């Protein structure tokens, strides 16, 4: 029994040492910023119809493990919006749908840093997996049953919404399991600068680009027009050493 207790104590000690070593190299933090998503697809030959990019936001909890002084592995679990708009133009101006699309996303990146001890530049590169968690659609469509007042004879007409009046909507996006592919895989790259303050807080600003490789639709029809997200992110955040969080003692940045 004694040898068992001894083995267990040794194991605990080893784990503690490993954890402490890992804590010294591990940083966690918070980040947030602005997103701008472009849906790479086609409206085909649709009359006066186009897709536009839209803004949104991202919030994340970056976790960074330093392998050495120039390379770290970073994961960045986050909530990110990949919004876009489909709108009609010219005579059909005023008809649109704004899609607010929410993803829970996990980028996993190699973090290459360079520069001085406190102020560094960095590059992030890797891949990500996202889950299309939900969405909201807001827009205006022409309501064929709402013809509105008669247009007097001889009066010019400037908008289709004069024929069929507008119906405004703002509702939750209903997924269609036959069409919607909710898992998204892709590549991610980022560039930024970071600054180590008081050997404790690492502030950073980063521009990032998410390049979706998964069509947002399952392969459900021949001659399907694919839809890919291209998401540009400008974000800022702060990282803390895990050891400092737990031990309240400043630890120098990894060597």
């Amino acid at each position, binding site marked *: 029994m004694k040898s068992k207790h001894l083995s267990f104590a040794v194991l605990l000690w080893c784990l503690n040492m490993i954890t402490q070593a890992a804590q010294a190299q591990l940083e966690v933090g918070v980040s947030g910023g602005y997103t701008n998503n472009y849906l*790479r*697809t*086609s*409206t*085909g*030959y*649709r*009359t*006066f*119809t186009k897709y536009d990019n839209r803004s949104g936001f991202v919030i994340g909890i970056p976790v960074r493990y330093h392998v050495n002084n*120039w390379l770290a592995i970073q994961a960045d679990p986050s909530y990110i919006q990949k919004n876009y708009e*489909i709108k009609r133009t010219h005579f059909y101006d005023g008809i649109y*749908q704004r899609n607010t699309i929410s993803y829970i996303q996990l980028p996993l990146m*190699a973090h*290459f840093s360079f520069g001085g001890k406190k102020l560094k530049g960095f590059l992030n*590169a890797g*891949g990500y997996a996202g889950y299309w968690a939900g969405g909201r*659609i807001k*827009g205006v*469509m*022409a*309501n*064929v*049953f*709402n*013809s509105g007042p008669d247009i007097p004879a001889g009066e010019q007409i400037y908008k*289709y919404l004069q024929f*069929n009046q507008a*119906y405004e*909507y703002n*509702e939750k996006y209903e997924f*269609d399991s*036959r*069409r919607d592919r909710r898992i998204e895989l892709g*590549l991610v*790259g980022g560039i930024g600068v970071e600054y180590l303050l008081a050997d404790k807080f690492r502030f950073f600003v980063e521009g990032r680009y998410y*390049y979706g*490789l998964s*069509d947002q*639709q399952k392969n*459900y*029809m*021949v*001659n*399907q*027009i*694919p839809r*890919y997200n291209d998401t540009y992110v400008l974000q800022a955040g702060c990282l803390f050493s895990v050891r400092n969080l737990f031990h309240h003692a400043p630890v120098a940045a990894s060597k």
Partner: protein
Amino acid sequence: MKHLQKYILFFSILLLASSCRKENPDLNKPEDYIEGNFSEVFDSYWNGMNNNYVFWDIDTTNWDRVYDTYKPLFAKLNLYDSSDVVKGYGYFQEMTAGLIDSHYDISFKDSWLADQPSINPAYQRKVKQPDYHIPISIFNFYRTIPKKYLDAGSAVRGFTNTADRQYVAVTGRINQDILYFFCSAFNLKSLYENNDPANGVKPVLQAFFDNLKNTKNIKGVIIDVRGNGGGSLADLNFLMGKLVDKQVDFGQTRSKLSNGRLDYSPWAPAFVTPSPDGRNITAPIIALADSWSVSMAELTTMVIKSLPNGHFIGERTWGGNGPLTANKMYNGGQFSTSFLNLVYTSSLIFKYRDGNIYEGIGFPPDQEVKYDKAALDLEQDKQLEAALKLIR
């Protein structure tokens, strides 16, 4: 620089992965395909349907299977051989046989098909049904009903012919305080605004509206759309708006939003807006409709059924109630190709207020009274009599 090789390898993998996106298919307007061979004829039609047909959400036709089966069959046909053109006509019949859009109709440009009827799957299904019957003769409405059922001296009837259609309308009173109105098709608002002295429908409408306004104790209103082939959506407010004094919600519509088969807009409410002189009729309002009541006739019936005092007597309707307009308006619906004069198909899907889509199956009556040829031959209108019995 000692890590340069690792960097190059890493970024090469990233670049390689970035080329994994699929290409957009080469989609063009169906009418832009050149009629050079049957492969073009097939591609223009199949893609036109793939992107513009609005019922893919509920239609059971496997359109991808149609592609796999018929693309090679069409490729074997010679566009300049009359027997192959007729064989191609047969393929179009087979491909479309199960489509639920009951407005659906394909007409052809090819002179070798001039003698062939347009392809209309709903009609072809209809004639095979055991209870199929021809439409009730227009003379039942124009001659028998005024003579036998309408009060003497109250009947007003008329018709007008346009380039492609004849419009017949009849109105009158039954027992002084039951109002009757029949129309064979909808273009009423336009005809009412038309002051051509040869227009026989306008006086009928005027008489019906006068009766609605001036009859103090209306005991019932019968709107007869049996055999009515549909027409202008504007007539819904024009006619039904006279019978209500507040908005009547009776369903929803949605259209295509993008090219994918399942890319739809949200559901927008379908309603009737009362006319400024709309009167709140509290007496029973009865729709008479049958299996030849199509489109606007079905929508009119649905509006009446949505009223608290509304009833529907007759037979299950035709089953084609999705509104139609030009393709560009709602980014879907009808289109043409170089080979096809017109693929006539709905622009929007209609869903009744009970949540059901009656496209392809027809709207059911709440009191079924079947077509009775023997009775009609004896100038007895059992469906109209059932409506009168319900009112009394």
